[in-house]
């Protein structure tokens, strides 16, 4: 199994979730994160003094999926999360050795 981690723009979350649902991904976990990258933050003024907002709000999606699904998951995310503008985000893939469903104890791909 693989974990596909995508850092996306927050307002595209629903699109990505729907796209993943369509190709059979039945579970995802979402974390609110702050991203720092090529997309630069902006400077704000508050009472005449500056402050730099350099961490931008991003949404991280983790989906653990069977190896066979990885490519289509990546494609789906790219399709749904791409606006063509800088800061669209990244997808990282890592190996997952084991998955267990807490309720039933099922393990492996069964558990997803």
């Amino acid at each position: 199994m693989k974990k596909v981690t995508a850092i996306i723009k927050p307002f595209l979350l629903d699109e990505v979730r729907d796209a993943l649902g369509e190709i059979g991904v039945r579970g995802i976990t979402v974390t609110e994160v702050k991203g720092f990258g090529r997309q630069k933050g902006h400077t704000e003024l508050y009472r005449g003094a500056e402050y730099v907002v350099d961490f931008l709000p991003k949404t991280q999606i983790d989906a653990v999926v069977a190896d066979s699904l990885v490519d289509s998951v990546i494609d789906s995310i790219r399709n749904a999360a791409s606006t063509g503008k800088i800061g669209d985000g990244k997808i990282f893939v890592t190996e997952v050795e084991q998955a267990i469903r807490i309720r039933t104890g099922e393990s492996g791909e069964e558990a997803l």
Partner: protein
Amino acid sequence: MQEQIFELQYAIDTFYFLVCGALVMWMAAGFAMLEAGLVRSKSTTEILTKNVALYSISCVMYLLVGYQLMYGGGYLLAGIENDGAEAAADLVAGVLADSAEAGFNGDSVYSDASDFFFQVVFVATAMSIVSGAVAERMKLWAFLLFCVVMTGFIYPIEGGWTWGGKPVGFGDFELLNLGDIGFSDFAGSGIVHLAGAAAALAGVILLGARKGKFGRDGQIYAIPGANLPLATLGTFILWMGWFGFNGGSVLKLGDVASANSVAVVFLNTNASAAAGAVSALVVARLMFGKADLTMALNGALAGLVAITAEPSTPTPAMASLFGAIAGLIVVYSIVALEKFRLDDPVGAISVHGVVGIFGLMIVPFTNSDATFIAQATGAVVIFTWVFIASFIVWLLLKLIFGIRISEEEEYEGADVSECGMEAYPEFTK
């Protein structure tokens, strides 16, 4: 029947004082909300605690000694006690005699208790100004000790020189009588607001800026307030309460001239605040390119402070103009103070101090009883006394207990170190 008329007049004037006093008391909530909105969430419980405590301490101290020092009303309000319920017949006789002497259109005759109630809430206002300026880094108990001295002594002594009619000086040492030389401060642009700001400035200088406010190479960093709805609510509360602050300072309602004067004061107070808000919003838009809500709020407050020294003589159009200028001054003053590395999280020194002086200086334009020289003298006397006395008290506190929380406590937030309690335990990250 003349007696009944005097009784009604007494009742009306007393009630008017009480209603105005309740409105000024309400300003304590306004300061609490304004300051709680403009600090960071990690210092919010502490600023709330300070505000509740300072109001309460002001009431206790003014009752114990302050009212005596300022108006000779007796320690522990010994004077008021007597006209309580026990000797109702004496009270009525006394009032009727006073009223007859004053005449229907003469000085106001009203309940001593209502007078104290109205005066005591002013003390708290002066003190509230301080809490905002020293927010987020001062030790709670050091602040409260200062509060005891300020509301029991520093303010009442100054108030005695101005509204109390006492000569400037102590004991046999008398310098001059501000009232006699033509100093006029209707509701306290100087006596209350500048005084509060002077005490705040002394504290801010000794305390230093919040960690992270200024960079090593002169950079100025913003530390945004955590809760702007609260700050806005606080400003509206202050705006409302100010009708009592200025309106009550006419000191009499119960004849045509007085009632009309009260109405003019309400109108002008509102006009000046409105113009101040609009002007600060526009100035901030031009200077910063954005509509800065907090500046609009400060602008409204600046308009209120500016008109406070004389809300009864300007025409409404002039009141609006004064407010608009105050709104402009306050934006520049806030920006300028930061250049001097004075860190005042809520802008109290600008709003109450800088604009307080402006308010004093414009009185002669509409009130021919006041002179520029007397106004300036008054401003200098008030500022000097309050600043120096406060500076000494802060300094003693600093030497004896320390007035600043540690760097680590400041990082964690004054709420945890001073109150052991977060203001928003479930929300903050």
